[in-house]
């Protein structure tokens, strides 16, 4: 029998608030985009992957390998610079290969930064932020009821969930404020602050040096 996989713990959320993680992510993104050295950029991508794993995200490595490979492959069709290798009619050039890898790792790096910097309980300001709170309130209730969806009576079973969670014109369940989602630290600990400064500051320094 297949065992159900448990969700990995979000270790970053225990030491840093969602707002501080997001702020550090924004600084990191800017510095990462200015990184010109391919080797440094690749090393950064692996560091971001580690941080995303610490944030409880499962990395689908196959997806990202296909992503970098396909971006690089498409760039190879437009030759640029010194020829490194010729495979039939296709000339693999240094400039095109470098450009493809730079772009591929940039795209994947941005996803990894986003995975560790954006927490689901990040509070956005204004009406949209308030509506998102309500959205997650209902989302959790719909998710709780998903087990009662039956393939044989699909529409009827979905209908039942919808009537339970959002009865039209009836008395709905008490719309309590959205509960906190995930394992969120209200404040950033000293260790969390140090980690965020090292990550974001380190990327800025690397962008200046290389």
């Amino acid at each position: 029998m297949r065992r159900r996989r448990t969700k990995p713990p979000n270790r970053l959320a225990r030491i840093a608030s969602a707002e501080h993680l997001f702020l550090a992510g924004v600084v990191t993104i800017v510095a990462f985009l200015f990184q010109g050295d391919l080797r440094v950029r690749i090393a950064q991508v692996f560091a971001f992957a580690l941080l995303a794993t610490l944030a409880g995200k499962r990395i689908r490595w196959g997806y990202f390998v296909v992503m970098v490979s396909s971006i690089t492959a498409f760039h190879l069709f437009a030759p640029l610079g010194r020829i490194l290798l010729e495979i039939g009619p296709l000339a693999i050039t240094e400039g095109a290969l470098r450009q493809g890898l730079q772009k591929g790792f940039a795209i994947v790096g941005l996803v990894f930064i986003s995975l560790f910097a954006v927490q689901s309980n990040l509070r956005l300001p204004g009406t949209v932020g308030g509506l998102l709170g309500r959205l997650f309130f209902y989302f959790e209730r719909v998710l709780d009821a998903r087990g009662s969806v039956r393939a044989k009576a699909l529409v009827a079973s979905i209908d039942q969930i919808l009537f339970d969670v959002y009865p039209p014109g009836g008395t709905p369940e008490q719309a309590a404020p959205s509960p906190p989602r995930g394992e969120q630290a209200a404040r950033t600990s000293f260790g969390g602050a140090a980690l965020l400064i090292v990550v974001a500051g380190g990327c800025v320094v690397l962008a200046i040096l290389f």
Partner: protein
Amino acid sequence: MDSRQHRHEVPLELIAFFGALCLFFSTLEYLIPKPVPFFRLGLANLPILLALSFMPPRQILLLVLLKVIGQGLVGGTLASYVFLFSAAGSFMSALVMLAAHHLGGRAISIVGVSLLGSLASNVVQITLSVTFIFGQSSWIIAPPFLAIGVASGLVVGLFGRRFQERSRWYAAIAGLDAGSIGHPEGPYEA
């Protein structure tokens, strides 16, 4: 029922609920095995397709905004290219579906509206891929992706029509006046 007649402002609480349904369908889609990594069925667009019949365009666009931000927060992709692709595809799809629904009248069914929305989303995403990621040589992938768009648009549209015809909840929500479908306890009443 020609639901084009009902175009009252609905309570913001109902928009938040439809946003939650978008996230729910997006979660379901994540569980479905995909033949290629970039393939998307677009199930999360189903609540938007259903809302076209009774929400005014301004509120449809607010629903799309909630959907893309909600997906970005749940998936952690808010600060990446995935969000840009999702936002551009979703908004273009919604605009095309709104235009088709309002201008097409009875000539375009919900299946046709879904098909057009899916194609619009795919065209935008292919254009962004070519411009920012893969380069000009990647136009070669356009035909299979558009074919996938047609197939997924049909699947979502057919399910939407079936749901529209059979759901008692949908009939009640789409047929009632705005004032009677709000949640009195919610902070966002009409």
